[in-house]
């Protein structure tokens, strides 16, 4: 019996890992899984890139000149929504199906780290996306106002958290296939009717008032103010994102299931 295992091999030496190490290991796994997944890359990188080139070079939608300056904030907002909402919802739906939440919940990983690791992984992917998209925009002649950079970071983090909370709300409660369908439909609707491709000032008055209350419109409007106009974001955009994020986050703590 004893051949393979020397006595003492499994002598108990339990204990939790260091929180920083756990957080980084979890976040790195989350981020690399996203970047390795072909559909996720299509959603988070290729479609925003295509849209950036399309909006800039093809004169279908009326945009102020230089077109790339108007297109870039919209594409950034889309990239944040794709990763934090659609990507996160679908990943969570299938992770639950495969029992990974239960698996991780059974380790020494504290509950807050279980969430923090996903958030940090998501932020890392968003940062990478924006670097690639900003480089592509620069190639198209984009020169953003440097004054808006700090505000951009604030809005991107806030937007990631808000859309992430919405993604967890969706992906944590429903069956994986339902999550997949809904997350894609919501993404498409918000892209075209949620104030991203067509910003609210291009919409009819009645519709614009409603769309302005959506997180997609708020993030696009905020990023446009910061990057194209070089001003602080309107307070209404920050408040809208905060309300959506807090509401979804609170609701998600009640509805999210491990399996």
């Amino acid at each position: 019996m004893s051949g393979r295992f020397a006595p003492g091999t499994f002598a108990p030496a339990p204990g939790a890992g260091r929180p920083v190490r756990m957080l980084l290991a979890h976040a790195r796994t989350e981020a690399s899984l996203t970047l390795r997944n072909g559909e996720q890359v299509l959603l988070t990188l290729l479609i925003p890139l295509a849209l950036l080139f399309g909006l800039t070079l093809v004169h279908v939608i009326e945009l102020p000149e230089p077109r790339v300056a108007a297109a870039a904030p919209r594409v950034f907002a889309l990239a944040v929504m794709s990763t934090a909402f659609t990507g996160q919802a679908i990943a969570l739906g299938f992770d639950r199906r495969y029992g990974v939440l239960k698996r991780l919940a059974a380790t020494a990983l504290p509950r807050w780290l279980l969430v923090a690791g996903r958030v940090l992984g998501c932020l890392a992917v968003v940062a990478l996306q924006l670097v690639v998209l900003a480089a592509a925009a620069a190639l198209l002649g984009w020169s953003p106002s440097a004054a808006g950079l700090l505000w951009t970071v604030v809005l991107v983090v806030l937007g990631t958290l808000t859309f992430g909370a919405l993604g967890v709300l969706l992906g944590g409660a429903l069956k994986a296939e339902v999550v997949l369908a809904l997350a894609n439909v919501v993404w498409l609707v918000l892209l075209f009717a949620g104030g991203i491709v067509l910003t609210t000032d291009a919409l009819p008055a009645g519709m614009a008032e409603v769309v302005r209350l959506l997180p997609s419109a708020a993030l696009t409007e905020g990023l446009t103010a910061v990057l194209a106009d070089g001003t602080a974001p309107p307070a209404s955009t920050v408040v809208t994102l905060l309300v959506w994020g807090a509401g979804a986050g609170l609701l998600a703590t009640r509805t999210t299931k491990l399996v």
Partner: protein
Amino acid sequence: MSTPAVEVSDLVKSYGPTTAVAGVGFRLDRGAVLALLGPNGAGKTTTVEVCEGFRRPDSGRVQVLGLDPVTEGAALRPRIGVMPQGGGAYPGVRAAEMLRLVAACAANPLDPAWLIDVLGLAGCARTPYKRLSGGQQQRLSLACALIGRPELVFLDEPTAGMDPQARRLVWELVGALRADGVAVLLTTHLMEEAEALADHVVIVDGGRVVAEGTPAELTAEGPDEQRLRFRAKSGLDTALLVAALPEGCRVTEPTAGEYLVTGVVDPQVVSTVTAWCAQQGVLAEELRVGRRSLEDVFLELTGRELRS
């Protein structure tokens, strides 16, 4: 080390109108192996998941390493290893990558590369989880349960879906864990597994404990009672055989073509049975004498008919 590894009493857990566990109780000592044995739907997994802190009991007392798994889960989890039923990993994660992640959560983990190798997963260490076979997924899940050098391990149907070689390996691992002082609570519906591994077997059925003890205690009968069993064509007249045997022997045909002689089975009884078979012109196949098996006990307690 005086507190038991697991102590459960009067555990009740219902899901809506269905009562999954209706008053289960048992005790697992440090460094011992306890098998929860029962048919599907007996309440084994629910019981284990309550001990792991995944489910809140409706009533009853559950102490794991002296802690309440629900309210003191954060202190408990670093000390236990869990192998949930049906594995658990990201669909796209590579086997070694998953194990390294779980290892990062522990203070003094085993070497993931070594464990991957020992469990025969070296050939698929870079394969995404969803493309692993069922047995490979099970072995990865077992590795995740052991990597943190826990004091207590929960293994929910650890050998389900494994080939015989992998099953032997798991048995050997459980033996090594026990030798190193790790307590193991495992569930199984394989008698052979419970008999081979467990110091203490708790047979559950319909959410209740129907028997418990060491395998030897459970299979013991009267001091001299033994069993002789053989296979032959079905429908032999057992009354005739009883008449030929010494006083006190009983003969039954529990399933068609399988005969069981119970009583004081001495060489004379064996000879009488074979002679009687010869008289009937039938060949007694697979004739053997022994104590009753855990399977006999299990089937006597839980019934022979197939459950839905």
